[in-house]
């Protein structure tokens, strides 16, 4: 009985060990994967260089890449600037209900309304005439020593 039990325990320990080792292996492979995906700018540069040199006209390709990178940097800066723009403070204007133009349908009031318009024009005309028409200052003290 004890032997049977010991055999079972051993089996359990072995299976657990197997599980642990398989887990470790999977963890190691994940680490390797992450190592493989790490960004290397030097490698990118060399690969780009190789790509540029692989073409028939590498100078033109270099110029295009330069132009594209300038464009990308410029648009990035433009995006940043657009994000940093302060919010426009909009003053909330208080809206007072303005008197709507009077619509007159009553014939008795039409003539009165017309007289009122005429009156308003007369009032606006009323101004101090002296401001424009005061006599000019003329030097007429003419004498010779």
């Amino acid at each position: 009985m004890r032997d049977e039990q010991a055999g079972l325990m051993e089996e359990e320990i072995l299976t657990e060990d197997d599980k642990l080792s398989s887990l470790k292996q999977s963890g190691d492979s994940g680490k390797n994967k992450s190592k493989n995906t790490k960004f290397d700018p030097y490698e990118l540069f060399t690969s780009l260089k190789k790509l540029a040199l692989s073409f028939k006209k590498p100078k033109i390709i270099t110029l295009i890449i330069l132009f594209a990178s300038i464009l990308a940097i410029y648009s990035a800066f433009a995006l940043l600037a657009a994000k940093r723009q302060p919010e426009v403070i909009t003053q909330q204007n208080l809206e007072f209900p303005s008197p709507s133009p009077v619509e007159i349908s009553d014939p008795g009031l039409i003539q009165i309304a017309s007289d009122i318009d005429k009156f308003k024009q007369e009032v606006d005309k009323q101004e101090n005439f002296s401001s424009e028409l005061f006599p000019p200052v003329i030097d007429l003290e003419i004498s010779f020593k």
Partner: protein
Amino acid sequence: MPTLLRIIVPIVITISVFVNFSIKSQAQVSLDKARQDYSFQFSKYREIQKDYQSAKSQYESFKTAISKNEAFLKTKNYLDQIDNLLIAYVLLINENGQRVNWQSNAQARDSIANSFQAEISYFEDHKQKVQNVSTLEELPPLAKELNEHLSQITFLKVYKTLATYEYTQAKSTFSEFNKILSSLDEYISINYSQQNNTVISNWRSEIRNIGEKTKTNLDLAGEKYSKTKLDTANKDEYKEISLYSTKAAQELKKPKILFDEILRIL
């Protein structure tokens, strides 16, 4: 016959509207022209005055025949320009009469026009006298004569005219105000006789207060105006008339809102 009327009536209305419009626009054109001319003559006067002052100081320093002749020519030119300026000024004042509503003082319009025509004739005569002189010594008496005429006649006519314009305009506007008020009173008494509308009552009392204040100021202006001579007024008289006319005009600005308000209520 009715067919003929149908044709004639629209034609007559169109012609009258066109004539009325063209008269008004012509009046505005002549007023603008008078303004431009006065402005031009004034700037020319300033230029010629500098030349005259320069020639005068040259002559007083050197006392030579050539410098005297130069002073004579420049002074003559200066006096000639003063006459031009004064003619333009008088015409500008006369043209400004178009801005006035003459319904309350129609006879004054012709009186002012005649009065200024006499002034224009005087300046033209004076201009001719200046043209006829040949020595420098003859010019200072002509300048003195013009100066005396300005202070004793022209400027007094100008003050009277300005007083007339301001007083007449205020009076005519007040007549318009009273006309509207009586029309509104009539309308309200017909349409709102049964109702006890407190808003209308308060509107009425407010507008009547304005009317009373305007009348008080206009009466004072009229009292001062009636004391002036037929064609002339001195500067102090003008200032008093102008003060009360302006006060009346300021009062008459208040009903603009009140009239709109009552139209909305009615």
